[in-house]
């Protein structure tokens, strides 16, 4: 039974000191050559509400030189304030950039721009200091490059997922890749000796290769489609191939896997309603597979995770 603490209350007769030698064996790191103080640069669009957005950062190095980095544009404000608001804030950002480049003091020329409290920072040079702080402090970046990258992630085909997964496997575990990866369909025979051609890109039937001495089989499919028809076509196809294989391979120590790529929360093009629809379709498609004791179902937005799970089949 745990007893009550009987020590003096914290703060009484307590000495505060650092134990000797705690960092004696810490790896040697040099002091950063550039030091100074940084501050956030904040925009208050509406002086009545006082709402603030980080639009940039400033850094005063120890020589007194002021460095600043501000948002490239005010595109992010268009949604909230419309076209006119975007244009006004673009104008304001331009003026502020010019002001700081001409005036080497951290004083704002506008009641809409406020400078936050200063704090210590150091680094290898002012540009890297400013870049790291800007990346941390400023979220309102909205440019064409990031939206086109996001668009390319909306649908990821089963073929693409398999290419990525097996590419990773070949790099990380080439011997297992050679053992497990199959490019052509597998021909199995059901109880009536009817042939079935099954899409099982993970396959090995050599009984001595695995600890538990049984066939290994599996498939990888993508649920990363906004279109329900494509999504269910891939999910149902994968599940059916696995179920057929599991039913035919009746020996004791077989092990199978169904590996499904799903969209991550927050992926562009997948709002919460779409995510729920994807999850429901996955649940429906895998239910029968999950009843099989010798088959595992792994669902993840991360191809690396799926790859490592498929490597476990080779143990």
């Amino acid at each position, binding site marked *: 039974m745990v007893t009550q*603490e009987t020590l003096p209350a914290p703060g009484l007769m*307590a000495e505060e000191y650092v134990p000797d030698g705690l960092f004696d*064996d810490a790896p040697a790191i040099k*002091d950063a050559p550039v030091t100074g103080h940084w501050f956030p640069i904040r925009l208050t669009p509406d002086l009545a509400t006082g709402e603030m957005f980080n639009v940039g950062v400033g850094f005063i190095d120890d020589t007194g030189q002021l460095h600043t980095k501000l948002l490239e544009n005010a595109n992010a404000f268009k949604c909230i304030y419309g076209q006119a608001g975007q244009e006004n804030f673009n104008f304001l950002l331009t003026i502020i950039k010019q002001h700081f480049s001409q005036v080497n003091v951290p004083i704002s020329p506008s009641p809409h721009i406020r400078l936050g409290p200063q*704090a210590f920072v150091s680094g290898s040079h002012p540009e890297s200091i400013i870049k790291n702080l800007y990346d941390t402090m400023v979220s309102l970046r909205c440019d064409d490059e990031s939206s086109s990258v996001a668009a390319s992630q909306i649908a990821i085909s089963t073929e693409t997922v398999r290419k990525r997964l097996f590419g990773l496997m070949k790099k990380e575990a080439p011997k297992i890749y050679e053992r497990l990866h199959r490019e052509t369909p597998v021909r199995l025979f059901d109880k009536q000796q009817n042939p079935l051609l099954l899409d099982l890109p993970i396959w090995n039937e050599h009984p001595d290769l695995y600890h538990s001495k049984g066939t290994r089989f599996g498939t990888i499919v993508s649920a990363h489609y906004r279109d329900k028809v494509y999504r269910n076509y891939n999910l149902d196809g994968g599940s059916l191939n696995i179920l057929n294989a599991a039913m035919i391979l009746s020996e004791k120590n077989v092990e199978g896997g169904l590996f499904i790529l799903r969209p991550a929360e927050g992926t562009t093009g997948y709002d919460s309603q779409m995510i729920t629809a994807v999850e429901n379709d996955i649940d429906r498609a895998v239910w029968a597979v999950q009843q099989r004791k010798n088959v595992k179902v792994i669902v993840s937005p991360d191809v690396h995770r799926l790859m490592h799970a498929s490597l476990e089949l080779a143990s």
Partner: protein
Amino acid sequence: MTTTGRIIQKIASPGFRGFIAWTDEDDGHQNPVFIASFEHPVEGYIEAYVKLYPHQNGLNRGLVNEITGYLYGHALQVPQPDHAFLAEIPLNRLRNIDQHLPTGHWLHGALKTTNTWPGFCSSRLDGKSAAVHVPDTEIYAVREDIAAWGDLPRAVAMDENIAHVDRHFNNLIRLGRKKYAVIDNGRLVNGNSERWTCDMLDPSALYRNRLSEHVWAHRPADETISAMIDFAQRHQAAFATIKQELEYWLRLLLPKEHADFNSFLSSRTESVEWLLRKRYQRLV
């Protein structure tokens, strides 16, 4: 074990790169928390949450509790921050520390005797990822979402093993729908503070398990109990992967009690399946 081979690295004060923000807006800043940037020996530039614990004649176990919790989390693959490290914090680099801390705060006393203080640091999960700290509330929607978290049984089994007695909801980070990570292992054994003594270490005790309590009222579904028992059977093998490093830290931070705490942890690791069976009355 070489320093760079450790899971938990050390960063001496030259590796402190900058102060970013205070984040401890509650509880009188008893354990000051802030975000700072560092030069990590393996990862390079890194931003992390930093927590400062008082020493209290060696009786405050905050640092050793955090290190224990993080190492176990790593071994048991419970989702948690990617990196944890011990950093030597230059106190004069912390913004407005005099104004931030109330009068009589222990750190004011420390400032009189030393320029630096060890901080337990864990890399950020929030920020641009838009992960959020879970609100400390019993609202049903929160409980329901956590209950559906796939790694919940794993986290509960870990907390049972290490006697984590303080895993309330705001010691979770929400990464996404039904997806969480654990943070803050400052309180093991004693739910009232970071201070425990050897007479509180009972390998067979059922310490408070708040995740189990708040999510399931200690009545999880049968298949969940089976899943936890299944995880528990792997704890010993997982412990073997961190044993050497854990012993290193315990000897360093608990010069007098490392053997007792080590024995406590390894006994509980061996018997965690039994502890779970006892808690959930699944004795057959």
